[in-house]
């Protein structure tokens, strides 16, 4: 009995750990798309953030400096996206793809030029990483049944960025639904003409939305290379940006549902590690490639209509042209 509980707690623990970059990136996509800017470039911004975080943390020895630089780099990419889609009303999907491809090439090129190890960054020492934090009382409570493992394994023992990600969920909901800025941001995604008529700049609002998205992607990237991993590895995002985007669509562009979808993806990721080489009743051992495929296949199945009617922000993807 205790054994099963421990297994469950460990899977839940891995789910929380793996959901961190997904939640941050999905929140980024949410902010951007609520202001009507489609952001396929989540993947590239995350990858850029991951590279900058690891490279700066390695050269300076400061993981905080790495995080800050990752956020700045990712926000610069957001500015580029904004310049193309908001200022020049370019195609948002094309711009996002371009950013993904630029970063997928640029990060290993710079990595090779700086560190000469095949485009990756050298392994970070523990001092230049976000290590797991033991919350007060975790050791003390460990022996207590039920609450003990729950608190010491599940709640305690994550890295700072994971706590930050979970703390940001209510903050972003509050910002979107309870502040004047959030109201305007949502309005610009539904009816930009009305916002414009009210004398508020559509462009500046959208720029702020994509900049917030950039900052969140930067943190997501840093969590990949300095918290979950200990270096930048080429293509280390491995589709997480696209999964985050899918999570946002399942989540119907709402924070709570989006986080639930992220946790679901992270859960398939977590059980994937545990399913490898395990004999299951009836089906036998599942080949590892099919387990890896799980989150992607689930995305398609869910998108095929198990999420009910999905309504995107009305102006999503449409550039705003001011009447003259």
């Amino acid at each position, binding site marked *: 009995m205790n054994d099963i509980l421990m297994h469950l707690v460990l899977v839940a623990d891995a789910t929380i750990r793996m959901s961190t970059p997904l939640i941050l990136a999905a929140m980024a996509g949410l902010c951007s798309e609520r202001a009507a800017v489609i952001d396929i470039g989540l993947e590239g911004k995350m990858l850029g953030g991951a590279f900058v975080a690891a490279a700066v943390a390695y050269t300076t020895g400061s993981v905080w400096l790495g995080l800050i630089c990752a956020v700045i780099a990712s926000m610069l990419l957001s500015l580029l996206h904004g310049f193309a889609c908001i200022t020049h009303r370019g195609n948002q999907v094309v711009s996002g793809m371009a950013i993904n491809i630029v970063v997928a090439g640029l990060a290993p090129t710079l990595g090779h030029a700086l560190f000469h190890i095949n485009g990756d960054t050298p392994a970070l020492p523990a001092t230049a990483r976000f290590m797991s934090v033991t919350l007060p009382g975790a050791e003390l409570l460990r022996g207590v049944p039920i609450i003990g493992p729950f608190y010491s394994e599940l709640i305690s023992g994550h890295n700072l960025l994971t706590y930050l990600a979970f703390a940001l969920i209510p903050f972003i909901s509050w910002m979107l639904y309870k502040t004047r800025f959030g109201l305007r941001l949502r309005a610009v995604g539904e009816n930009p003409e009305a916002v414009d008529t009210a004398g508020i700049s559509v462009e500046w609002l959208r720029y702020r939305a994509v900049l917030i998205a950039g900052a969140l992607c930067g943190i997501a990237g840093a969590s990949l290379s300095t918290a979950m991993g200990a270096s930048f590895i080429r293509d280390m995002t491995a589709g997480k940006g696209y999964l985050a985007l899918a999570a946002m669509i399942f989540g119907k562009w709402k924070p709570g549902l989006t986080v639930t979808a992220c946790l679901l993806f992270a859960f398939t990721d977590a059980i994937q590690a545990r399913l490898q080489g395990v004999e299951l009743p009836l089906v036998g051992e599942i080949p590892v*490639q099919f387990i890896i495929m799980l989150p992607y296949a689930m995305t398609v199945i869910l*998108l095929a209509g198990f999420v009910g009617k999905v309504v995107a922000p009305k102006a999503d993807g449409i550039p705003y042209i001011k009447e003259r």
Partner: protein
Amino acid sequence: MAQAKLPGWVNAGLIPALNLLVAFLVSGLVILAMGENPVEAFGYLIYGAFGYAEAIGYTLFYATNFIFTGLAVAVAFHCYLFNIGGEGQAYMGGLGIGLVCLYLGDLPFWAILPLAVLGGALFGAAWAAVPAYLQAKRGSHIVITTIMFNFIASSVMTFLLVEWMKRPGSQLPETTHFPDQTWMPKIYELAKHLGVDMAHSPLNLALVIALLCCVAVWIFVWHTRWGYEMRAVGRNPAAAVYGGISPAKAIMISMLISGALAGMMGLNELMGVQHRLIINFTNGYGFTGIAIALMGRNHPVGIVLASLLMGALFQGGAELAFEMPNITRDMIWTIQGFVILFTGALEHMFRPRLERIFIKKDTEAAA
């Protein structure tokens, strides 16, 4: 004033050229930032792509891949569908081609060639069919579903190559070699039969098939009913419905043809050079197809030109990486990304300024 239009050569020639120039300028700045000389770097790039006969053969060989994937993206785009799944469709098409070559390889080449074309096209189309159906009937976002299908294709192919189709006794995830008669004839071999001596390169008959596909796509898009319906749905689905056109049907048709074109890429890569089914042979060419279609304005002639440019970039990039070890082949992706950004997303950046210059001139001339 508003009705005044830019002259055709500005629209189709000058604007793309300017955008390309900016893309290369920005790439040059990146190379400069890495402490290398961008002029020298582009020199190696151009020499590596066109400097000698063998290089030109390689450039054309890469261009062949890009014609297939570029046409695929373009056909879907005429129906306003973003087919980002070219990579997965090409991979699956390769499986179809591989199966034909491995299991029907005893047939003579004239029988294998159409079967292989069919195999590649069918498997590619089949892989595009599911996202197409979901878009047509359930409204699932085709960008997301095609991306997911790329990942799924990659997993499925790895499974097949590791577990089922692997060459006995080999450690590598690859099949046994295709029988000799399934190999796509090289252009230099064909030239030798005609008494012409050409430099040896992997350039093969697939280029001719690719060019035939260009003609077929041109006829299909602009001169058939299906093509017309597809473009009508792409322009304005609501109006198309009033015109008695079924958007769902148009979406299915354009995506199936798109997938079939992407699937044929393996003719060049697998039957032309690898002569076996290997892991990751698509090497991102499916994504490059997006850049090709954007640069080529979704027109076959433009696509051939854009493919030549990108082929030159791929072949010249190898020379560049060799001559300047500080710059790796990944730099090609960076340049390609900038090309997509400036020719695709920022295509209108120079338009207002050029409109001011050229349209003012026109009115002055008229006055």
